[in-house]
């Protein structure tokens, strides 16, 4: 789920950046440092939308660098256990399939795919129902429920299920 939140960060600036463009330099360094990063607490920082406040700079003893506490608004993507969302299938194999929702990758194991769907290997590996009416393959759009999240240094990884009611391939009536 996407959220619009306020975060705070201490930015260190080298004196060569001082002068008329101090604030601009601070903001562009902030964007470079923070956009695209991920934390377990806030999820992925997708984009910084504004600066709320820049505090007074503090000169660091011994180095001459100055630290500014910056409060900024940003859009983050944070998946939650129990959340239901839509995703695009990126890879299918006999263990299950991988899907992507924005910056997050989700794995759905074959144990959490309805029993009436079977894996078919080939050029375009897929899961299909016995009557062939529903198919999950690369680029299919699916609605899934996140049942677990794992955070490592640079990203969040999720596992999901499509075994509950109203989950599975999204049928677009316009395409039918």
């Amino acid at each position, binding site marked *: 789920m996407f959220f619009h*939140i306020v975060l705070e960060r201490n930015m260190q600036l080298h004196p060569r950046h001082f002068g008329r463009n101090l604030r601009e330099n601070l903001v562009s360094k902030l964007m470079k440092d923070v956009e*695209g990063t991920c934390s377990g607490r806030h999820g992925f920082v997708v*984009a910084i939308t504004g600066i709320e406040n820049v505090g007074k700079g503090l000169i660091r003893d011994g180095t001459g660098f100055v630290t500014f506490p910056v409060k900024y608004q940003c859009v983050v993507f944070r998946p*939650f*256990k129990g959340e*239901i969302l*839509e995703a695009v299938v990126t890879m299918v194999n006999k263990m299950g399939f991988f899907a992507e929702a*924005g*910056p997050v990758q989700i794995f759905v194991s074959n144990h959490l795919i309805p029993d009436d769907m079977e894996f078919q290997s080939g050029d375009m590996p897929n899961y299909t129902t016995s009557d062939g009416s529903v198919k999950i393959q690369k680029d299919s759009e699916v609605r899934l429920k996140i049942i677990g999240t794992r955070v490592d240094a640079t990203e969040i990884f999720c596992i999901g299920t499509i075994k509950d009611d109203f989950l599975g391939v999204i049928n677009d009536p316009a395409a039918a």
Partner: protein
Amino acid sequence: MSGEEEENAAELKIGDEFLKAKCLMNCEVALILEHKYEQLQQMSDDAGNHVSQVFEKSQQYVKRFSRYKNPDAVRQVREILSRYQLAEFELCVLGNLCPETVEEAIAMVPSIKTKGRAHDDEAIEKMLNDLSLIKKFE
């Protein structure tokens, strides 16, 4: 890892910080990212060089999974859903998934039934009807 033991979006257990935060529907994020992308294009000469992979993937995702494209429609959706006592998170899940029946809505957002806010089936049905009207006239 702290905070993970009880997390469960189905029961709206997503932590105080996110419960109180402003939640965004995919269609709203699409407008924000589009605007930001245009700003970046205007500011620099080498287009496309300044966005992270996270930004690009997110932008592609919200463009693909936005139910409403027109900014006025997006605003109307939020306005209509805000009339019902919903948490921000619940509002956005409904706006993103656009359930068609009351049964589906409850399956997508189980917490609307369990939080003691008296969301009876009639109220939920009216809300879904209002939502689908916007889609028709978008």
